[in-house]
């Protein structure tokens, strides 16, 4: 007995030590990829709502060997995560969504993505808005890393019931006529606040972004120089003015209080790119019929719009491209437009009665199939620099500090320049 006890103890001790090391070091995950029975799981990373829930079910029904894993995350986080995975060399999803604001950054790493031209995507070029096609095309025109899903377009969503209570017109044409310019818009805001003692806007940053989108040059010119004095200054001044006039409810976008604001009337207007409609419908189903859509002050402009890419490190490249190709077919694009409002980037579809005649009942039967395509077609999009994403976040933060009263508005512009320069490095 005395002999056996230390031996098993010794063996156990060594086994424990070795075993825990082996367990700790074998971090390789076996999920994803092709299973033994020919099952393929495609992972898609995106943010918000791309209208994929129902399409996924349909595609899976048609392709019994494919399962699709939808992974929706926070907007900035998804892009940063993709960047990290590209650097690390593994872990990227089979299909990764990229917003136009981050496109230049990823386009310059075109070698990390499957060249869709090699897969025959070139035949779709003529279907797309020319600028949308070019946004994801490499500088030499030889590599197309993405296919466009939606474009932003711009409009102004407003609450008819709150407008009526403030003695403002509620008909969408009359409302559009209230604000041909952004100055008029602020005047209407002041009238609303004076009448109701409530806030007019959700957040001044949601004034900054669309106005910046309307400027010929955004944060960066095509030589990647930060040009704060041009477009950003114009947009920033309006945003700060709105904050100073007390028009903003100061609710952070896509956070709980903002979402609650759609139902409880914390704000009456909201700049609406097409993709925003889906979010309003999802978060405030109880307000059906109370919203309507008017024109945006200052004419056209673009805010947002996304692309789908196939990173090279994905495990199921062939299946991923097949699914991607299926997604951009007219039938699917029209369905996405109808369910979540995302406007397709293929102008041929705008005359399709399914879109042209489509009225969104949630938004008081607004003719969204007429409003948004008009914006998207007559557009010269901005060049969005490599550091556009972080720069935008930095300037938005300065606006937020003005809104919550910790930064004086006359010192704000200097601060914005400082923060933008930091972010551009």
């Amino acid at each position, binding site marked *: 007995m*005395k*002999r056996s006890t230390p031996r098993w*103890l010794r063996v156990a001790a060594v086994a424990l030590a070795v075993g825990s090391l082996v367990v700790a070091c074998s971090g390789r995950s076996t999920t994803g990829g092709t299973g033994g029975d020919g099952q393929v799981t495609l992972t898609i990373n995106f943010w918000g709502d791309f209208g994929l829930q129902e399409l996924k079910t349909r595609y899976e029904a048609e392709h019994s060997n494919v399962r699709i894993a939808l992974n929706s995350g926070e907007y900035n986080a998804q892009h940063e995560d993709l960047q990290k995975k590209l650097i690390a060399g593994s872990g990227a999803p089979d299909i990764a969504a990229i917003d136009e604001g981050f496109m230049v950054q990823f386009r310059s790493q075109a070698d990390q993505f499957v060249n869709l031209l090699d897969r025959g995507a070139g035949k779709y070029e003529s279907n797309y808005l020319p600028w949308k096609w070019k946004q994801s095309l490499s500088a030499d025109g030889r590599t197309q890393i993405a296919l466009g899903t939606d474009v932003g377009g711009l409009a102004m969503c407003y609450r008819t019931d709150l407008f009526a209570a403030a003695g403002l017109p509620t008909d969408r044409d009359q409302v559009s006529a209230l604000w041909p310019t952004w100055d008029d818009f602020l005047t209407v805001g002041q009238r609303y606040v004076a009448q109701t003692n409530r806030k007019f806007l959700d957040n001044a940053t949601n004034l900054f972004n669309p106005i910046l989108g309307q400027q010929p040059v955004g944060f960066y010119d095509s030589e990647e120089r930060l040009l704060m004095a041009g477009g950003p200054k114009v947009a920033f001044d309006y945003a700060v003015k709105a904050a100073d006039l007390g028009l903003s409810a100061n609710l952070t976008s*896509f956070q709980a209080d903002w979402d609650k604001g759609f139902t409880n009337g914390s704000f009456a207007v909201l700049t609406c790119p097409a993709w925003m409609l889906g979010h309003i419908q999802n978060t405030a189903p109880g307000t059906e019929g109370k919203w309507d859509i008017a024109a945006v002050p200052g004419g056209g402009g673009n805010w947002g719009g996304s692309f789908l890419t196939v990173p090279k490190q994905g495990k199921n490249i062939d299946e991923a491209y097949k699914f991607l190709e299926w997604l951009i077919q007219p039938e699917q694009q029209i369905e996405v437009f109808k369910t979540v409002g995302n406007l397709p980037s293929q102008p041929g579809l705008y005359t399709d009665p399914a879109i042209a005649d489509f009225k969104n009942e949630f938004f008081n039967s607004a003719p969204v199939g007429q409003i948004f395509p008009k914006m998207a077609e007559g557009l010269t999009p901005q060049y969005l620099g490599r550091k556009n994403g972080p720069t935008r*976040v930095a300037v938005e*933060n300065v606006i937020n500090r003005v809104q*919550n*009263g*910790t*930064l004086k508005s006359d010192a704000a512009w200097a601060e914005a320049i400082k923060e933008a320069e930091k972010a551009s490095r």
Partner: protein
Amino acid sequence: MPTTRAAGEPALRRRGAAPDRSMTWRDRLHRFDVRYVPYLLIAPFFLLFLVFGLFPMVFNAVVALRHWRLDQPDLTGWAGTENFRRLFTDGDFGNALYNTFGIFLLSTIPQLLLALVVASMLNRRLRGQTWWRVSALLPYITPITASTLVFNVFFARDLGMANWALGLVGIGTENPIDWRADKLHSWIAIATMVNWKWVGYHALLFLAAMQSIPRDVYEASALDGAGPWRQLWRITVPMIRPVLIFSVVLSTIGGLQLFTEPMLFDLNAQAATGGSGGEWQTVAQLIYRVGWKDLNLGYAAAMSWALFLIILVVAALNTALTNRMSGGRR
């Protein structure tokens, strides 16, 4: 003489290094058991420590001395002390350090004082004693993420309970406090979360130490006319000094590494900015941001080494201070 000589011989031989031919297999095993098995038994911890403790620290020190930016892979080169020198002029680091110490002071001091009071109350005869003691530990068991999410709602600007409660006593009825707008309010909010979690834990540690204080010391002091307050400061505190110092060191380390609460207090936690102007960004949060958002690993590594050194110094200072305040020898 011959008798003593004969007795000395085996003793000499036993002391010798060479194995005794007369030693049985069983004796050898016994010797192995006594001499080496303890090392084998404690080896797993030290092996794990080498792999997951010491190696990362050394590797981190190497990284801190290099340029290592994930977004500029061509930059991997020797940086010398450049990353460390940059710390001294970096406004963000200064701000984060200031925030960390601010929140640290607002949390640690009330926390340990409160724990002391709670412990001395739990140390009395109480009805339902176990229930009280277990409840004190409940916040400690709650996951930080869960409790922070609840506190987030609690400290909401428009519909939060904190503002509602303050409104009852007439504070902020016109302009509700925006807990995320400035340093002081956000610090208070975060310190509240930290205190909520740790008061009970430290109280139970203190309580365990207090139980070993002989009752008759209190009785004697009561005879001399000492009240409960005086007993606490003159008898209890000096007599639980080792545990007190342990608690101070523990909360110094924890407080200066504060990460989860400030991270999740942010409305957009992913940004890791600690408020739109970095109002409550702690050093740990800044390290995360520099490393994983700006992708500058070299600089982040230098920051974490700096934090390590700062914690060492502060912990040593606090120990000395506590030692002195609770009447220890200098």
